[in-house]
Structures are given as structure tokens and as C-alpha cells.
């Protein structure tokens, strides 16, 4: 499903972001990528959505070599990988409904389909009652659920969540992880990038640990190994 072959990323002048990463993530997996600040987690996440290009190596998602993807095809890739960010990245002047619908509008989906899909997805994340609100009228947890709803509208095969609980309290963080587990149970591959020890340990799923830009551990039912 997702294959990384000998991926290295060097930032100018000579900062090693990632070095020689080899990974394979199967369809329907729930994988946590953990590590301390500067370990290379966010760099890896950016490479997976083609926000940055690797210096060396090849990334293949569903048979698509995204390291050679032309700029004009990047929007199509991003419609196929759902992305959840720590800082939400919602459009502040659009309502909850419009934020979610926007992800479908950019794909030229018909108005009728959008009116069908958006309420369904908002129901999955429990926000159908707050569709007309603007992001600043929601709590952090609710904003993150809007982001997840937006990521889900294309029914992506992969959902990449970069520190989705980073700005949330324990209760809201728990709700978001439960939501990700629910989405994973529908068959969507989840790649969770986090440094939240409690979350990782409670999941009991595959854990890939990064340190200094390298994979130092890859356990099928892993725990957060690094010191806090």
C-alpha cells in the first residue's frame, strides 16, 4: 500500500532530516510513527503528501510513485490521502459545512453529491448540529473533528494524522483517537504521527520509532520506547 525505499531528506546547507528510511505499510493498518522533536516525523508526513520531495529514494502509494509526481498532479494525490493537522488548518471564513464541502468542490463534485455526502460525514464525527458554525465558534476537539470529516469526504484509502491530539486536552484527545480507530475499522489505513506516549501505549498497534531521522524500532504491537 505505502512503500518507502531508501528515503533520505537533506535540508540546505547540510541538515539531515531523514536518512535511509525503508518502510512498508499495508492496507488497513493503524501505524503510529513516534519520536522526539526533530526526529523526522513531520518531514516524513510532508513527504507522504508531496508537500516536500525526498532528496533520495522512492515513495509509492497504491502503485503511484509520488516522488516523481508532476506539480499539476499534486492536488489529485491530496484528494486521495486524507490529512489531519495538529493546527487544524480550517478555512476561518467558511462554516463547518463549507469547510468539508470545499474538499469536494475542488474535485468538481456535483452539488447534489456534496449535499448527500457532507451531512453523512458530519454525522460520523458528531457535528451535524454545528454545520453552520464557523471554526472560531468551536472547541479545539470539535475543530479537529471537522478536519477529520474534511479528510474523510473523499473516502481516502489512507488517512495521515500529524499530531492530531497535540492541541487537545486528554478527553478530547481520547475522542479523536476513538474516531480514528472507528475510521480504521471501515478499512482506511491510518498513519498517526505523534509524540503522545499515553495515546500510543493505549492503542497497542504497530509503532515505528524515529530518532535522528532514522527508524530505530518497528514493532507490530509496540509501545512508546523513547524517554519523555
Amino acid at each position, binding site marked *: 500500500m505505502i512503500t518507502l525505499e531508501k528515503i533520505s531528506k537533506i535540508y540546505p546547507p547540510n541538515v539531515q532530516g531523514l536518512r535511509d528510511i525503508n518502510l512498508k505499510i499495508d492496507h488497513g493498518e493503524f501505524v503510529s510513527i513516534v519520536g522526539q522533536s526533530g526526529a523526522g516525523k513531520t518531514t516524513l508526513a510532508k513527504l507522504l503528501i508531496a508537500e516536500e520531495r525526498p532528496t533520495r529514494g522512492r515513495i509509492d502509494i497504491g502503485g503511484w510513485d509520488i516522488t516523481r509526481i508532476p506539480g499539476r498532479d499534486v492536488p489529485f494525490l491530496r484528494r486521495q490521502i486524507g490529512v489531519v493537522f495538529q493546527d487544524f*488548518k480550517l478555512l476561518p*471564513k467558511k462554516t463547518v459545512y463549507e469547510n468539508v464541502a*470545499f474538499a469536494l468542490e475542488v474535485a*468538481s463534485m456535483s452539488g447534489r453529491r456534496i449535499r448527500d455526502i457532507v451531512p453523512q460525514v458530519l454525522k460520523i464525527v458528531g457535528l451535524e448540529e454545528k454545520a453552520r458554525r464557523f471554526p472560531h465558534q468551536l472547541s479545539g476537539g470539535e475543530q479537529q473533528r471537522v478536519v477529520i470529516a474534511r479528510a474523510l469526504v473523499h473516502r481516502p484509502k489512507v488517512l495521515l494524522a500529524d499530531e492530531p491530539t497535540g492541541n487537545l486536552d486528554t478527553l478530547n484527545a481520547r475522542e479523536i483517537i476513538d474516531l480514528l480507530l472507528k475510521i480504521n475499522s471501515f478499512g482506511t489505513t491510518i498513519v498517526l504521527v505523534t509524540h503522545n506516549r499515553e495515546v500510543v501505549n493505549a492503542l497497542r498497534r504497530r509503532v515505528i520509532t524515529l530518532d535522528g531521522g532514522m527508524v530505530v524500532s518497528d514493532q507490530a504491537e509496540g509501545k512508546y520506547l523513547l524517554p519523555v
Partner: protein
Amino acid sequence: MSFFINIWRIIVSAWKHFVRNLWLALSTVFVLVLAMLSVNVLLGVNVLLNRAAQELESKIDVSVYFLANTPPAVLEQAKFLMTSLSQVQSAELIMPDTVLENFKKQHAAEPEVLGSLAELGENPFGATMILKAKNTADYPFLLQALDNPQFNFAIESKNYDDHAETIKRVREISNSVQVFGLILISIFALFSILIVYNTVRVAIYTQREEIGIMRLVGASNSFVRMPFVLEGIFLALFAIVIAGGIVYSATVYLEPYLSTFLDGADPGLLTYFSANWPQLVGAECGVLAGLVALSSWAAVGKYLKK
């Protein structure tokens, strides 16, 4: 079909963005209106100066004084010959009796002058012909034309020399007004272009994060760009409407005051704007909307590359 869906969504998105960013939109419109006003005010000043030059030119004439007792046939022939020239706007012949009447009216309060006139016992004045040229440049030609042997023997004097310097100066002022007006309008237009470009850039800078988010959720470059470009065109149209309203109201209000500077003559501002508004609005609208659209296109592009 999806093309039209996208066009419709871009229009709706641009309009919603305009309404929801009202303060940012209003501040941008404000700057655009100021830029448009500065160009239009200068345009108005140019019209006024030209009008003033025209008014001065209209006061210039050549008075031809004929000898007393010149036969009316000669006078009529002189008038006919001068009127037939294409450079002549008008030729007014004032007969000796009327000249005498005018003289008496002018000097009604001076009994010595009237007494001396009475002592003469006859009308000492000849006829006067007042010639106006279509252009001030034509006066030297008119003076040459007055040398016509069919009536030049009856001319006592001409007063062109009195006006020669005035005519020359008015012509210089008129030409300078045209040249400097164009230069000033060009400079103001250039300033306005720079102001508009920077205003649009600042407005889009405040929305750079939104542009990044749109890209992250899979929007193509044109889908991100077009609402901003269209919103810019909305702003330009609003600015044109507001600036047009201000220019019209100010013209209607100021024109009576301006006419006092022109000896009660029509300043011609309202006439100018009324006669030329389709071209003015079309040109200003085209330039401003085009400029704002191009600025938006370039400014958004900067954040699309990131």
C-alpha cells in the same frame, strides 16, 4: 458540465469571501477609490484649465476702425469678404450711428467730452468691425486678409497689436496646460497603479494561510487563484461606482462656484463628464479591474509556490 460547476463555485466563493472579509474589502476599496479620485480630479483640473484658456481666447478679437464717411457698400463688402474666410468665426459690423450712441453712453457722466462732441456738429466716428478667429493662431492671417485692396484704403486703424502679446500668452498657456496635464495624469496614474498593486498584495498577504490550506486539501492552482482574482474585480467595480458617484456629486456641487472664476461662464466640467462618461468609465474600469486582477494573480501565485 464540471467546467460550469467550477465557474459558478468560483463566483460564489469570491462573493462570499468578499462579504465575509468586509473590513479588509472596504479598506482595499477605500484605497482604490482614492486612486481613482486622484486621477479624476486631475482630469477635471485639466478640463477646467482648458476651459479657462478657451474663455480667454474667446475674449480676444481684432477691432477694425474704418474712416468716417466710408460708404456702406465698402463696409458691407469688407464684412462679406472677411466672413467668407474659413478662419473667421464671426465678423460684426457696428455702423457709425451705433458707435456714436455707444460713445455717448460710455461718457454720459462726462459733460466736457459730450460738449466737445456737440461742437463738432457731425458724427466723427467711422464704422467698426469686430473680427473673431476660430483659432488664436489664425489672427495673423486675418490681419493679412485685412490688407485687401478692395477695402484697405478705408481702414483707419486696427487694434491687433494691443492683443498680440495676450494672444501669444494664451496660446502658450493653452499648450502648456495640455502637455503638463497629460504628464501629471500619467504620473498620478503610475502612482495609482503602484498603490493598487501594493494594496492587493497586502490584502492577499493577510490570507496567505488560507491559500496554503486550500492547496493542502487538494485545490488546483486555478481553483485557489480565481476567487481571489474575481474578488479583486468585485472590489474594482465597487471602487469605480463609489468614485463615479463622488466625482458626479462634487461636480454638480462645485460647478456654480467654479463659474465665478470664469466670469460666469460655464466651467464645462459637467458637460465634459456627461459627454465622456462611457469612455471614462470604460477605460478606468478596464484599467483598474485589469490591474487588480493581474495583481491578485501575481500575489496569489507567490503563495502557491510555497
